[in-house]
């Protein structure tokens, strides 16, 4: 007898042998393990031992009544779905049963289909409630982690700066001028990093919050990339890195928001420059792939070790080179990229080889010119269905 890992148990409590038999037949055919008991007392013992997901209980039984069974089970194990069956259905008994904790009420005689329907509905509701509970626990954990992370990330640079300044005061000019200058430079650097962190953190918060406007328009990829490359021309030159965009003009248009796209590619291109080698290259190219545009930002840099790849897009994650100080940056860049890309209905991934380089691939929806009619109809449909665009909660 094969027993699936997830096989659920249903307990049937009814003094009528024929009823127990037919329930058992119907329910085991659905894939459940079924145990049947002929009275309330045995039934309660069975429930305690077997821990079923659902119990079918007849109201009118000698000894402990069905209502009593319902009340007792609901008191101790409220997560068990209780279905009450009876040959004497009245509104009063129905209401009474619900008040005691029953999920639903099935008058006898009932068809196999009716039983199946109620059982499926009841168990679905149970699953949803379990999921909700789990989500709430996860949410509390995430919130705590968020608070700790943020307070730590924000505190650390401030502490370093404060300590430098306080020690300088305490040592009162006994340190060399060169050392003092060095420390003051470090204070400035840490303060700048902190400001960058706060800026990124706010961006991330804005993406998740309602204040983010989701007007997807036609965006010219080539123009956006060209602007970014212009911004970083000097920085790249200082790092000995050459920048090249292979995206032809007027060819690739995506459905998105200009500012968001700037942020995404800004992050990717800056990374490609930072993590590069002197004499290295950053190349941006694009191609059309079945309704999407795939953009590749490739560098000839240090690459990303395999073991870090699953965490690359996590908040605050930064790849650390062994034995070196932590790499600069807020650790939020890729996390922001991923959120924005996902918001626009796209996806992001990375290919990399250590010491050879990395290529970040972003796929976005290709902009398709709609006729005015189609756009109007689309807007009306959205209004009618009360459609609300969810933000950032994709798995």
């Amino acid at each position, binding site marked *: 007898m094969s027993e699936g890992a997830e096989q659920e148990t249903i307990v049937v409590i009814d003094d009528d042998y024929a009823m127990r038999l037919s329930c058992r037949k119907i329910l085991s055919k659905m894939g459940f393990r079924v145990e049947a008991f002929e009275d309330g007392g045995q039934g309660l013992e069975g429930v305690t031992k077997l821990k079923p997901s659902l119990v079918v209980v007849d109201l009118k039984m000698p000894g402990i009544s069905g209502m009593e069974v319902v009340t007792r089970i609901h008191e101790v194990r409220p997560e068990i779905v209780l279905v009450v069956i009876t040959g004497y259905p009245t509104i009063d008994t129905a209401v009474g049963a619900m008040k005691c904790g029953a999920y639903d009420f099935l008058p006898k005689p009932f068809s196999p289909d009716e039983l199946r329907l109620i059982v499926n509905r009841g168990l679905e509701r149970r699953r949803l409630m379990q999921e909700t509970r789990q989500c709430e626990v996860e949410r509390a954990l995430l919130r705590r982690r968020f608070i700790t992370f943020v307070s*730590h990330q924000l505190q650390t640079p401030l502490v*370093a700066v404060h*300590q*430098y300044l306080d020690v300088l005061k*305490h040592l009162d000019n006994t340190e060399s001028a060169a050392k003092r200058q060095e420390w003051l430079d470090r204070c400035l650097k840490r303060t700048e990093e902190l400001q960058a962190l706060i800026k990124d953190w706010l961006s991330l918060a804005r993406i998740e919050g309602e204040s983010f406007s989701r007007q997807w328009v036609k965006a010219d990829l080539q123009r956006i990339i060209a602007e970014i490359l212009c911004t970083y021309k000097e920085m790249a030159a200082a790092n000995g890195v050459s920048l090249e965009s292979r995206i032809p003009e007027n060819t690739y248009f995506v459905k998105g928001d200009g500012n968001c796209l700037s942020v995404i590619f800004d992050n990717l291109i800056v990374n490609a420059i930072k993590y590069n080698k002197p004499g290295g290259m950053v190349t941006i190219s694009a191609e059309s792939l079945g309704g999407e545009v795939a953009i590749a930002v490739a560098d000839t840099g240090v690459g990303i070790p395999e073991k870090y790849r699953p965490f690359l897009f996590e908040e605050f994650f930064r790849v650390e080179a062994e034995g070196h100080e932590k790499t600069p940056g807020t650790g939020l860049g890729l996390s922001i990229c991923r959120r924005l890309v996902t918001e626009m209905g796209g996806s992001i991934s990375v290919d990399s080889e250590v010491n050879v380089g990395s290529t970040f691939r972003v796929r976005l929806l290709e902009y398709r010119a709609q006729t005015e009619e189609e756009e109007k109809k689309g807007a009306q449909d959205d209004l009618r269905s009360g459609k609300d665009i969810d933000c950032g909660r994709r798995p």
Partner: protein
Amino acid sequence: MSSNLKILLIDDDKDFRASVKSLLENDGYAVFEADSGREGLRKVVECKPDVIVLDIMMECDVEGYGVNQAIKYQDLYAEYRNIPIVMTSSIELTPDERFPMAGELDMIRPDFYLTKPLDIPKFLDIVHRAAALCPSHGEA
């Protein structure tokens, strides 16, 4: 006399180490550094310090407590068990306040606990007191 006394500074923030190192050296201590729990334990064996100033290092999964536990409880480090540990953190709650129900609390409680940024006179005083706790040199 602070001379000849060795302090091991374990902290993953290089700026924090730089300023505190100068501070301690100015007070006559010889200062050794480590930027992680793992390196810290290596340096304990290598330098045999008189005091350990240890950061909680939350970024590395509270590595600081790991060092504390290793020094005070693992047989491997039995020889260094009596080195006083001054733990630093930007969190104001002491381990007892943060983990009141933890069974391992005894294992992770440091000898001294200070919040960052360090109050300099208080810090120097605690390091001085910690150094006085350490068994004197000359014993095998």
